């Protein structure tokens, strides 16, 4: 078990309802977990709670069996690599330098990066198909290139788990598919991946397990087929949907237009 949250409760100051209440969530090695749900349902807060980045009112978050609050950030960064939804660098680094920053937790303030660090950075860039971007500055990258550079930096951390918050949000079909295929490959090589996403249909195709969050609570958890049902989604998103299947069983969600019925 890499990540483990039990009975997590988070309240933001000045907000009446809890952002997260009584949530259990976990991530094992070699597992792809998708976190889905409506806006403001607690997906990003869950990610932060698992990483010890927000104070917990109740419950406990553990990383590699230790309470996350007790783990120095540099040690945590060697176990889990997390990419928040937004990241706006103040200065235009080169992609190679940017990915090299993933080695920070391993190097400390002074140790120069050695051959093994450079090899890891190169490997990370190559796995993300970003080696040719290494001399470009990050302010010149397209949305897809930027996400690949960020995932490469996450891999340079040599983590056991990846936590990605809406990694495909700004990506077209090809780049979204490439990114998730890459994450799936990494999962096959033993990493755990927890991916927050609004793309229900991609979650259905890539995830081993889906956590459906709304109003700060887990509404459903299980395989895509167990979670992504017509009744549950219609209720949770407060919008009628139809669920069909693709390729013999993977659920695919079609939100209905006004006046459309489920059985044309």
């Amino acid at each position, binding site marked *: 078990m890499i990540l483990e949250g039990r009975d997590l409760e988070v309240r933001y100051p000045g907000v009446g309802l809890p952002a997260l209440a009584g949530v259990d969530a976990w991530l094992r090695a070699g597992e792809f977990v998708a976190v889905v749900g409506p806006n403001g349902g607690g997906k990003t807060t869950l990610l932060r709670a698992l990483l010890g*980045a927000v104070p917990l009112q109740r419950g406990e978050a553990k990383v590699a069996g230790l309470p996350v609050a007790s783990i120095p950030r540099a040690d945590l960064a060697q176990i889990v690599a997390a990419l928040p939804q937004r990241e706006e660098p103040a200065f235009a680094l080169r992609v190679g330098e940017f990915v090299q920053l993933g080695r*920070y937790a391993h190097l400390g*303030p002074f140790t120069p990066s050695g051959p093994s660090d450079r090899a890891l950075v190169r490997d990370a860039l190559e796995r993300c198909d970003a080696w040719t971007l290494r001399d470009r500055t990050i302010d010149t990258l397209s949305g897809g290139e930027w996400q690949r550079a960020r995932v490469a930096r996450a891999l340079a951390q040599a983590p056991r788990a990846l936590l990605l918050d809406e990694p495909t949000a700004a990506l077209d079909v090809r780049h979204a598919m490439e990114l998730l295929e890459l994450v799936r490959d990494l999962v096959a090589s033993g990493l755990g991946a927890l991916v927050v996403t609004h793309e229900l249909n991609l979650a259905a195709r890539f995830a081993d397990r889906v956590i459906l969050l709304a109003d700060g609570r887990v509404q459903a958890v299980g395989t895509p087929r167990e979670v992504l049902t017509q009744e549950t989604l219609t209720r949770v998103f407060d919008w009628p949907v139809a669920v069909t299947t693709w390729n013999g069983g993977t659920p695919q969600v079609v939100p209905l237009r006004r006046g459309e019925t489920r059985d044309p």
Partner: protein
Amino acid sequence: MTRRLLFVALFVLLTATFGLSLGAVSIAPGEVWRALVDGSSSYGPIIRQLRLPRVILGFLLGGTLAVSGASLQALLRNPLADPYLLGLSGGAGLGAVLAIALGGPIAWAVPAAAFAGALGAVALVYALGRTSSGRLEPRILLLAGVVTSGFATAIMTALMVLSDAAELRNAFLWLLGGLGRASWQSLGLFLIWAPIPLLVLFTAARSLDLLALGEETAGYLGAEVERVKRRVVVSTALLTAAAVAAAGMIGFVGLVVPHAVRRIMGPLHGRLLPIAFAVGGALLVGADTIARVVVRPIELPVGVVTALIGVPVFAILLRREIR
């Protein structure tokens, strides 16, 4: 990269040589280097007692301001940050004017009061910028710096209007800054004070690389974000207050040098901070030399020269950035 470093070294060497050789009396560069090692040279006293401490102090102050500016720009993720931003300018000014209005001796009471005023203002900004959970919020720090400085400047202006004209001129000249008061004593004081906060900033270089990406990302990459922020704010405040006490407020070095060096060396702070130190130091020594000779025998405030050089350079850099 090696060529760029050589260029920087040459810049330092040239400005130091000119700083030692030019002034009210011009001394040939060859004579300067001889006077440094040979006690019998007739120029020995001028070089060793007046110009050498002035050039060394100028170099250290320029370097300190540049490193402080670079660090704050990364911390606040704001390229317009300069070392005086967090309330220091207003606080130092108020302290200095208060000391002059109360008739304190310019030699030590004014620098001491400016120093105390600067640190007092930063302490207030720091307290205002802390959330209830003890986090430092950069946006609030920025705003708190602006309003604190504004408030202190208002009191200072009132004091200046109420005091007589000679006092007012003294206060104004003192604040504009200059290395005219440099001596082995003031250099010694600065050398005792500055190394530790400077070392703290240099050791924070890699953490600043991460902070410049954003605080959440920096934390996930392994930085102890709050600790780094506290250290950087406290260190830059201690350094800048000491710089103000030594030479008044010298503008634009801390704003322009980090920009210029970032363009040449890239934004990674492991390289940026030491090179900015060297370039900022050399620039201030050069500006001080110009201030001494351009309208001899009157000395221009060095802040006027750094602004006259700094503003056009900054404008050109900005134009290139938005090209």
